[in-house]
């Protein structure tokens, strides 16, 4: 079980801020594939990975990052702070 979080328009497209997911995905990219296959709204949200960023356990990382031991994965668009 892993906590998956969505922010900004990713959250809006998927329709929820957070969910628990039972997954055996080895990498973030594998998890994305699983999510895409679930429902249309996921497929739409994850259509273009270059428009997305990912954090594993609250650290920015890449889509090929391992999920071994991960408790939390977050997907969001490029940040716009400041």
């Amino acid at each position: 079980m892993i906590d998956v979080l969505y922010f900004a328009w990713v959250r809006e497209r998927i329709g929820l801020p957070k969910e628990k997911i039972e997954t055996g995905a080895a990498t973030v990219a594998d998890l994305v594939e699983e999510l895409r296959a679930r429902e249309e709204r996921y497929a739409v949200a994850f259509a273009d990975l270059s428009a997305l960023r990912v954090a594993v356990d609250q650290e920015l990382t890449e889509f090929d990052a391992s999920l071994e031991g991960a408790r939390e994965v977050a997907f969001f668009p490029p940040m716009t702070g400041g």
Partner: protein
Amino acid sequence: MTVRVQEAPFDMGAEVEAFGKGLKGVGAIVTFSGIVRDEEGTLARMVIEHYAGMTEKALEKIEAEAVKRWNLAESLIIHRFGEMAPGDQIMMVATAARHRVDAFAAAEFLMDYLKSRAPFWKKEFGEDGDSWVAAKDEDEAALDRW
């Protein structure tokens, strides 16, 4: 070295005053504040979403990197989330150093990283509906100089 992430407004004047108090060996203080632009009256309000839990960590990491690179006596980052109106202050950074070169460079570095590496997202509500603010290529490019 202080990071504050809060929904409440802050008093820039009071923060600047408090930041400068009692610092030793400091000759230069630089502050930056970011303000919701009014966009010629077309913007009604802005809402900033953030990743509670990660935000402080990300900001502290950016601040620690600045401390490693420059000779700083003190630094401060305040960033708000939630709803704001045009003209409201969104955030501020302050840096204190012996020399102005360090204070300026560190403040610019903090701003550049905070723009595209801290988990905040701005949504604008205006005359023509609402939209998420898109990240700018120039903000990503700004990181290359460090």
